[in-house]
């Protein structure tokens, strides 16, 4: 059974950090961080996302694609050619290691929607790109776009995360924000697309826990044009954020207030303005509440968010040092790369930690 044909619960490790002043850090630090939570993974999935890594193509969508074979690749490229202006395409460079095997063809394209196609679709550029990615992932069997944002990219594989980082030569990339994931699935998916992070446009999500609201969330979000092909929590959560932020127009903080809404009795005890606000969110977005254990790190071009479920059934530690904010499942993952943080704390359940890049620099 492959990912998507059956729902596979998994445990995990997450880590991430952001330099709010957009200074760049190479990938070796995040590998070091996630590596020290080795026991939270079981070698069946690891991955990273990095922001600010493609400055020379920052106005183009960077598509990272897995192919099963070259026939599929040809078919997919035909599709891409028809819908996008492709300014650059190449294999994603990898470093062979015996710890990472059975690799698919891994390609990268920097693209922009063709103006004529975009105009006739009557969609905005982002929605057009999303629709095309969904089409490839749903209908071109053997092709899978696993990253499609601008000036960012995801890198993932079956294996332990530190080996995955090594494989993708992440030490050669420089980004201002990094997230990482080590996976502990309960059976063997054996498919690279199933590893995390899960990405859509500039949103990348890594997640630890198995949510109990999954099918309610999935069936709700699928009403709005999303298709949960992988049947993973992370995929559903990514779509929820895309829906709330990009389509509904919420801020990330407001979206967090939807997915980890306070309990009703807490809301009743709030002052009127907050009470009205949370009543409104719970009344109108109730199917996007997420229950069950989760700790999430959400990356987007403007920042990094860490959030736990409202009962705090999963661990999360946050630290700050100067302009850098760290988030991880365990404190050791932060200490491994920042031995002397200014502050270390564990956020309360349901209360998001929101780090935003400082614009205007």
């Amino acid at each position, binding site marked *: 059974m492959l990912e998507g044909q059956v729902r596979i619960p998994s445990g995990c490790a997450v880590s991430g950090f952001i330099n709010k002043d957009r200074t760049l850090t190479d990938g070796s630090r995040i590998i070091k961080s996630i590596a020290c939570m080795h026991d939270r993974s079981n070698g069946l999935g690891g991955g990273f996302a990095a922001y600010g890594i493609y400055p020379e193509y920052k106005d183009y969508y960077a598509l990272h694609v897995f192919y099963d074979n070259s026939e599929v690749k040809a078919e997919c490229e035909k599709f891409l050619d028809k819908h996008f202006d492709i300014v650059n395409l190449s294999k994603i460079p990898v470093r062979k290691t015996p710890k990472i095997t059975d690799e698919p063809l891994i390609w990268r394209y920097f693209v922009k929607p063709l103006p004529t196609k975009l105009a006739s679709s009557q969609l905005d550029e982002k929605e057009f790109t999303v629709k095309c990615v969904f089409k490839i992932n749903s209908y071109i069997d053997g092709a899978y776009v696993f990253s499609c944002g601008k000036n960012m990219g995801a890198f993932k594989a079956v294996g332990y995360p530190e080996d995955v980082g090594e494989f993708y030569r992440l030490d050669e990339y420089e980004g201002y924000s990094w997230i990482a994931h080590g996976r502990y699935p309960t059976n063997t998916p054996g498919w690279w697309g199933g590893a995390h992070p899960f990405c859509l446009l500039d949103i990348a999500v890594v997640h630890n826990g198995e949510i109990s609201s999954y099918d309610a969330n999935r*069936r*709700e979000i699928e009403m709005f044009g999303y298709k949960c092909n992988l049947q993973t929590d992370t995929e559903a959560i990514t779509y929820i954020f895309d829906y709330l932020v990009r389509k509904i*127009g919420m801020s990330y903080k407001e979206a967090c207030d939807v997915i980890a809404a306070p309990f009703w009795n807490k809301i009743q005890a709030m002052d009127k303005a907050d009470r009205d606000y949370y009543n409104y969110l719970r009344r109108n977005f*109730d*199917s996007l509440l997420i*229950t069950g254990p989760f700790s999430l790190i959400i990356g987007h071009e403007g920042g990094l968010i860490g959030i736990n479920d409202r009962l705090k059934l999963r661990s999360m530690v946050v630290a700050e040092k100067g302009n850098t904010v760290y988030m991880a499942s365990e404190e050791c993952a932060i200490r491994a790369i920042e031995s002397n943080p200014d502050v270390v704390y564990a956020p309360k359940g349901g209360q998001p930690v929101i780090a935003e890049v400082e614009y205007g620099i």
Partner: protein
Amino acid sequence: MEYRPARFEVLRNMDKCNGCNRCVKECACGVHYRSDSGKLCTRDYACVDCQRCVETCPAGALKIALNRNTFHPNDNWSERYIGEIYKQAATGGVLLSSMGNPNPMPSYFDRILINASQVTNPPIDPLREPMETKITLGRRDREIVRDASGRIAPKLVRGLSADVPILFSAMSYGSISYNAHAALAMAAKELNTYYNTGEGGLHKDFYAYGDNTIVQVASGRFGVHSDYLNAGAAIEIKMGQGAKPGIGGHLPGEKTVGDISATRMIPEGSDAISPAPHHDIYSIEDLRQLVDSLKEATGHAKPIIVKVAAVHNIAVIASGIARSGADIIAIDGYRGGTGAAPTRIRDNVGIPIELALASVDSRLRQEGIRDRVSLIAGGSIRSSADMIKAIALGADAVYIGTAALCALGCHLCRSCQQGKCNWGIATQNPELTKRLDPEEGARRLVNLVSAWTHEAEEIMGGMGINAIEVLRGNRLMLRGIGLTETELRILGISHAGE
């Protein structure tokens, strides 16, 4: 010659009977009587097995049993069919029954199993950690409006909100007694949920419970006027009910007496006839017209519920209703109860709520309009487990009618249409209605709903879900057992073991 086969026989233990005459007084059906010579006798054919005499006999001397006298056994021509033919041959009448379909039809609730967490995520202990059963019903409004400072400006959205996902379904004053209505109203208030007037109007005494009242508008429009529409928290348009889809109602003139006539606003002794259709609704666009006219008459403040019976093409019907301005759709399955329905309709028309609900929920999602309406499922919700399964299949809440009546003492003798309810529920005979103490009834209703809610919390906790809104439509939490591929496909669930 009149054939009057008795379904039950009354067994009196003469060693225990002290001849106190209590059974004669208690039985309004006239089963127990003293003969001219003073002997305690029974008319077995009149017995409906309501158990009133059994429960009230101070000596414990009575039992009601299925009649040991048997017709010549015949699996095809059962005694039931033969007896019904005798009745119709004697009277030329349409067979009239009550409560829900009693036939051995499949119950899908009984063939669905619920999930629980093991290892990969934790169950939640509902006695010590938060567990939310509060529901909100109505259209979801997702258009964000911001104030000058950029904060979300929360909108007041028309809808209902209850502490429990259980509402009392429509039962009119007239079909049930004043005391039964009083008990339902008081219980709804204490539970912070809703009861439903049915189509008999709202007694003036119960306007005080308006915040916990759903007022119904049915085809007969009994007791409907501007103040009535504005008195409740919501208005329910009754298009149909599970026990008798496609037909109207008929409260015989002998029941429209006293306050019933005043509340229905028709003269005493007049038949109260509800037409089969709403005569201003012959098509879906006409439904929008009634929905909108009710909104106009109430300043667009009250959510509108449209109640329909589960029939074959319920999914597209519901889709049409969702596009007609309704805020809530109530679907009533074919096992739903009633005060009186033609037997053949009750037993043969409509489809099970489980299948109807699942297909409606799926259809509304396919069309991307599930967030426009809430769904209330009714039609034989017998336990908290049925309720949980209904919600996981896609309901926002459930309606209970029969279960509520049982809490009030109903023994399901299915003879409401006779108006002789010995438990004081489905009767207007003052000698009988006083048997139901409304305070005691309300207490029992509160107990029942509280108990179900506790059980639901335990079940939800087991699944690791601590807010009922994300149990809604969470079909991954269900598995079928012994169901065909077709049944599983319609229910949208996998088979146990998958």
